[in-house]
């Protein structure tokens, strides 16, 4: 008779954990998330309705701040510039990104495997660094401008106009479109395209009349995304708009800081509210469009290997097109930074070999604040990144497999920071630390920057976490329930171990974006809270080109270490 036959060994069912205890960590997680998201935002709105900074005794409630900025012609020109640049870059990035995706996904373009990570470089490098790279490479006395002058007697480009900013922003945002277009093409079952080929359509006809309409929702989504990112631009207009005095919304807000001599928090808050009023509808629109994208993705047929389309004579057109794009958006700015970091000065008549120096790095490492900035940046990416992933995971578990009202609340909470540019979140957190006295001691610590980063990237991070969680089959968790595991134990002993690879990948991606981040730290910059990104903004304002170049290069190297690790461990660089 069997050893495990019933009558001999009866085992009682484990006692279920009390429902209240089971949900206490969840309640805590939701409450903390709500505070971290809503406190800074409500403070912005509150501040915008005052006539003076909130700590000023003479403040009154009213619309004075709005009246002031609406009467300021600079504000309206900033609005116009923002819209122009956003529209221009969308028009450039979307078609280019779509073509790039088609070439990479569907044709026999040579060397696709190693080109792919290169395509994503502009989206991983800090825009501040990229813009600086453009100035030193292609500005009036940039390397390429001087080489072009030597060769042709003049450089036929200018960097500082609104149009130039739109072009550069457009080219550097091609990866954002490429990512969505190429995954839409990947998800598109090859059978629908093959069916069209069989029915007699040429490859070009298939691309235009089958593939394009089917990835249209993805393109539309990425168009809205790029336009939205255009409204958020900060580093690029700060660096390139400055020489000719072009302001966009974010730089207008930044310049307001000192406009009245005294802290003009109420004016900044009013501008912030205006920016958020423009971005919130775009974020909601994106959410709607994303559901559309998913709807199309589910009609896919078999995801078979599609035979690559031979480009034939067109190969050279594609090579030139992609080569030119890579040259302008990756090679030019990157070379600029790499060269500028190693020369004493640069201008007409200066020879590279003679100007070579390591002094720029010496001056970085001699200055304690710079060393601290580097150290903090590494720390916030590694330790901070791990903590951030832990927080995101906790939030993910708070909504995982729970279809109640609270889960929907969290869904929206997570979405909210998406609509608020990093610069504003940093500013709002500065106010939070000033406003809530118990938090004040944290203000001067790197914790403040970490918290702001974590909130800014909440939506992005939650997408990473939930896509990991979605991959765990429901049945694995149900199996644990039926053998007697409580919810908490299932999370710890089944789900968490199953998503650990996804979490490691998320950590690497969070590391990269934290290294890249710059605008969120701008207002939180204080002795002790320096990070490279914010430090660059401040140094650029001070005109310390040599140090900016060296720090930029260090920043790029940090990002590339993350990128190399991610590629090494096969982390998917996009969702």
């Amino acid at each position: 008779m069997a050893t495990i036959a019933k009558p001999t060994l009866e085992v009682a069912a484990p006692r279920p954990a009390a429902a209240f205890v089971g949900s206490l960590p969840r309640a805590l997680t939701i409450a903390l998330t709500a505070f971290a998201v809503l406190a800074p935002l409500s403070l912005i709105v509150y501040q915008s309705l005052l006539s003076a900074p909130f700590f000023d005794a003479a403040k009154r409630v009213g619309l004075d701040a709005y009246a002031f900025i609406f009467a300021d012609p600079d504000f309206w020109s900033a609005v116009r510039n923002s819209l122009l640049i956003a529209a221009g870059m969308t028009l450039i990035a979307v078609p280019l990104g779509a073509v790039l995706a088609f070439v990479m996904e569907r044709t026999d373009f040579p060397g696709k495997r190693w080109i792919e990570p290169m395509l994503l470089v502009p989206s991983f490098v800090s825009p501040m660094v990229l813009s600086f790279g453009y100035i030193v490479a292609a500005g009036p006395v940039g390397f390429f401008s001087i080489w072009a002058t030597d060769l042709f007697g003049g450089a036929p480009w200018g960097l500082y106009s609104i149009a130039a900013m739109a072009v550069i922003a457009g080219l550097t945002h091609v990866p954002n479109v490429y990512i969505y277009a190429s995954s839409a093409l990947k998800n598109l079952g090859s059978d629908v395209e093959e069916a069209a080929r069989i029915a007699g359509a040429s490859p070009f006809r298939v691309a235009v009349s089958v593939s394009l309409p089917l990835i249209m929702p993805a393109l539309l989504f990425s168009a809205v995304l790029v336009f939205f990112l255009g409204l958020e631009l900060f580093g690029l207009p700060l660096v390139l708009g400055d020489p000719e005095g072009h302001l966009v919304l974010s730089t207008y807000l930044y310049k307001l800081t000192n406009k009245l001599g005294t802290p003009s928090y109420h004016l900044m808050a009013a501008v912030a509210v205006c920016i958020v009023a423009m971005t919130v509808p775009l974020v909601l629109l994106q959410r709607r469009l994303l559901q559309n994208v998913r709807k199309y993705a589910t009609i896919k047929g078999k995801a078979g290997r599609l035979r690559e389309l031979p480009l034939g004579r067109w190969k050279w057109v594609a090579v030139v097109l992609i080569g030119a794009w890579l040259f302008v958006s990756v090679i030019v700015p990157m070379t600029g930074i790499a060269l500028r970091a190693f020369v004493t000065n640069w201008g007409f008549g200066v020879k590279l070999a003679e100007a070579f120096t390591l002094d720029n790095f010496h001056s970085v490492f001699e200055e304690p604040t710079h060393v601290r900035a580097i150290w903090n940046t590494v720390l916030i990416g590694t330790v901070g990144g791990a903590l951030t992933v832990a927080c995101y995971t906790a939030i993910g578990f708070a909504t995982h497999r729970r279809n109640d009202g609270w889960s929907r609340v969290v869904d929206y909470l997570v979405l909210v920071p998406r609509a608020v540019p990093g610069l504003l979140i940093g500013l709002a957190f500065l106010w939070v630390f000033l406003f809530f006295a118990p938090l004040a001691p944290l203000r001067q610590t790197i914790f403040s920057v970490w918290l702001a980063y974590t909130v800014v990237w909440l939506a992005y991070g939650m997408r990473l976490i939930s896509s990991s969680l979605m991959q765990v089959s429901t049945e694995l968790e149900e199996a644990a329930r039926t053998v007697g595991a409580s919810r908490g134990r299932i999370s710890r002993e089944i789900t968490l171990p199953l998503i650990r690879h996804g979490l490691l990948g998320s950590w690497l991606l969070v590391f990269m974006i934290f290294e890249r981040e710059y605008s969120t730290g701008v207002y939180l910059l204080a002795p002790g809270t320096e990070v490279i990104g914010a430090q660059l903004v401040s140094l650029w304002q001070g005109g310390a080109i040599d140090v900016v170049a060296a720090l930029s290069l260090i920043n790029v190297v940090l990002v590339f270490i993350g990128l190399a690790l991610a590629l090494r461990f096969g982390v998917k660089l996009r969702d």
Partner: protein
Amino acid sequence: MSELTVENLHLAYGDNPILKGVTMTLNRGEVVALLGPSGSGKTTLLRAVAGLELPHEGTIRIGDKVVFDRARRIDVPAEARNLGLVFQSYALWPHKTVFDNVAYGLKLRGIGGAEGKSRVKAALEQLSLGHLGQRFPHQLSGGQQQRVALARALVYNPPVILLDEPLSNLDAKLREEARAWLRELIVRMQLSALCVTHDQSEALAMSDRILLLNAGRIEQQGTPQQMYSAPETLFTADFMGSNNRLPGRITETRDGAALLEGDGWRLWGTAKAGATRGSEGVGMIRLERIRVTEGPGDNRLQAELTTSMYLGDKWEHLFALGKERLRAYGEGPLESGRHWLELPQRALWIF
């Protein structure tokens, strides 16, 4: 004694009713098969018993303990129902070894150490998995995975074991072996099992009793023999076995028999519920009960052979009777042309 009792269970997904009042029992040492077409609610019923779905009406008792009673607001969570469930996909935890997969249920019950170890070992031995303890699920074949899933569900001796399409993930050849093996195991260990399947031959072979579900209701229940040879409804007759369907008009009834007439033929059959004189009727007969004969006679009709298929152990012939098609088995090939077919009165059910 009844190990599991379900009474008047109702369950809906949104506005879509899945279970519309199901009542059933499972006795100790009995294997009950939940059989039905896809969408009939059989898996939902199983999951409701396990506590993974929330019914909106009815009661569920395991032994004499009420685990669900809508009216009294009792809903014991799945983890406290102490049942064993074998998933269709097996749902083995890929990050745990075979040993740890099986040991988890004991660990949750505070049984670790030497005792836990020996019981896991025993369970693995029982299912001839003793040598595979340190493997991970992905290193096992489908049949081995299924046995691990079973060991995992049995190791803590649940009073009832629930099986969700336990054989459907195995390939056809393995399935028949596994069926025999599973039946033997269940009988040997005197398990009380509730087993979902959509395959009638699996249900016939494995269970002591079959519950046939149709659109959220129990259509008929009984022993496999009753279900196969004495169907009460057209649905049951049609779902079990391979059938011929012959529509016609009932022109006469007497002594439990009915006369079905069609275009150029008339056949006596066993009258079933709803077969009344003068109404439209449907004649049902299993393929294996039609005989190809030499000439005319009682309850015979003439039909044109359209084609024959060779099945290995027998032939299947396809006949045309006006618009209708009749299929019959035979031992050898037939010449083309018209043939006489006999449909014995006892084997022809008229609904």
